[in-house]
């Protein structure tokens, strides 16, 4: 649904060059919620702005719903008619809501329809329908200043949906909200994704956002995508930074000559009594440092951090046994063989 290839954005100011995006290849499938996570300055904002060409990429292409937007852009800094038409089919929600304070809630939602040249009757019918969808039917006549942050973002979402878009871009939509409100807004985005078949590309710096609603995720660092894939793929990737951030287990080694191993269970393997088998087979004492079971991207995943006596060299055989059971094993302090490469989609 959204594909970027070789997307590069270089900002030039006073002779200095800053590379915000450095060859980003992104592929968002139709109907999924795709999260791009990274710290501030990683290039997330530039990336999402390049998708509807609010920022002109320095090079590379952006395709949304089969349409090459970069080809529509033309040479000048101003957006031509075709690009503007294409933008009207992409909804966007913002961190700071960006509602017009001079208009009522209903008039804010009608704004995209005014731009599309819809008649007054059509506009108000559509606006009221959308406000009902986001649960704010009773606030149509209020002004944005009279709403709470969460309500404002609901209006922002209703407005983004006014043009019946297939794609919704979310620029840190929940970052200005408290945890409770964040959850309800994410739930709304998830519902819209399911009900309307909306493809959602969101950028965030909060791991919880990815954890609660994303089907796929990408990790950005210094203008590059370092890891990407479906949440399931990421969790199954040894050494995946995203996976361990999505699903952290704590616990430090109790002494120097110990081997600490992260065991991730998903699917079939979760039902095997592997730890007791390991203990009996090799006659070793295993201590559990930390463990958790969680739902990530709709998948039940268990993760356990265990400690084996002796250094890594002494434990090659038991670790091999665990791998044979179909478990994903990450040995702390040991470089996994397929670092990151395996996570690229």
């Amino acid at each position, binding site marked *: 649904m959204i594909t970027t290839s070789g997307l590069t954005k270089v900002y030039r100011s006073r002779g200095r060059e800053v590379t915000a995006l450095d060859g980003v290849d992104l592929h968002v499938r139709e109907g999924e919620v795709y999260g791009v996570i990274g710290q501030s300055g990683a290039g997330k904002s530039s990336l999402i702005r390049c998708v509807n060409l609010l920022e002109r990429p320095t090079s590379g292409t952006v395709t949304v719903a089969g349409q090459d937007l970069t080809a529509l852009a033309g040479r000048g800094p101003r*957006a031509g008619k075709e690009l503007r038409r294409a933008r009207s089919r992409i909804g*966007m929600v913002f961190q*700071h809501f960006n509602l*017009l304070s*001079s208009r009522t809630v209903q008039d804010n939602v009608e704004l995209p329809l*005014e*731009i599309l040249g819809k008649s007054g009757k059509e506009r108000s019918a559509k606006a009221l329908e959308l406000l009902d969808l986001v649960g704010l039917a009773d606030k149509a006549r209020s002004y944005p200043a009279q709403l709470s942050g969460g309500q404002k973002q609901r209006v922002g979402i209703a407005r983004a949906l006014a043009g019946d878009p297939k794609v919704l871009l979310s620029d840190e939509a929940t970052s200005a909200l408290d945890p409770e409100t964040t959850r309800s807004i994410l739930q709304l985005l998830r519902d819209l994704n399911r009900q309307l078949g909306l493809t959602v590309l969101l950028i965030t710096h909060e791991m919880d956002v990815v954890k609660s609603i994303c089907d796929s995720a990408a990790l950005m660092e210094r203008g590059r995508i370092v890891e990407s894939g479906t949440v399931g793929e990421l969790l199954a990737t040894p050494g995946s930074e995203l996976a361990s951030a999505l699903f952290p287990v704590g616990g430090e080694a109790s002494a120097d000559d110990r081997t600490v191993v992260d065991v991730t269970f998903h699917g079939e393997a979760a039902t095997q009594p592997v730890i007791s088998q390991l203990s009996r087979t090799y006659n070793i004492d295993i201590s559990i440092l930390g463990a958790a079971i969680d739902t990530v991207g709709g998948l039940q995943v268990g993760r356990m951090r265990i400690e084996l006596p002796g250094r890594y060299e002494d434990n090659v055989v038991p670790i091999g046994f665990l791998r044979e059971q179909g478990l994903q094993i990450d040995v702390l302090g040991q470089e996994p063989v397929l670092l990151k490469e395996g996570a690229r989609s």
Partner: protein
Amino acid sequence: MQPLLEQACWDTLYMVGWSTLIAVAGGLPLGILLVLTDRGGLLQNVLANKVIGQIVNVARSMPFIILMVALMSFTRWVTGTTIGREAAIVPLAIGAIPFFARLVETAVREVDGGLVEAVQAMGGNTWTVVRKVLVPESLPSLIASTTTTIVALIGYSAMAGTVGAGGLGDIAIRYGFQRFESELMWITVAILAVVISVIQAAGDYAARSLHHRGGRSGPAPKLRLLKATTATSETV
């Protein structure tokens, strides 16, 4: 005395009214253009921005009395005369256009860039941004700027007497100052003070009623009142 003042009142209102209309019609687009053509603006054009900016600066630095004389031939071309109320409107308006344009520029710059971005993301063009965002969002400030411009024009219009345009200021100068009829002078000053207060109050009211940025509901001022009374009761 009374018909004299009455005529003067109407002359002032006539001159100020028309020149305000022209100043707003000319200054609004000019001020918006100053924002749009600026670096990072939607119609970025550094050269055009510099040129417009310079014209505005030169026009603003010109003392009004000089401007009036300098524009005489232009005034004759427009109105067919260089004396009277109509002739005074031309320099008043031209003097006020750059003044208002700068005020517009400041007001429009205050509009959050995120709103512009939001409208662009909806597929709006530059004209849409101006019509739906920049002007409506800065409307309270624009109203306040218009009030300031009207008050400044009333001040300028006193000098319009030098071209025989009449008006309250002219009465104050000719009768009050030059003929030592200080009573008349104080009366005109009082009338001007009332006119300006009324205009300022009306402008403030209009700007406030267009403001939808919260604080419209009751509790806040009430609370302040409550605090004030408790404070005084404490001191007593």
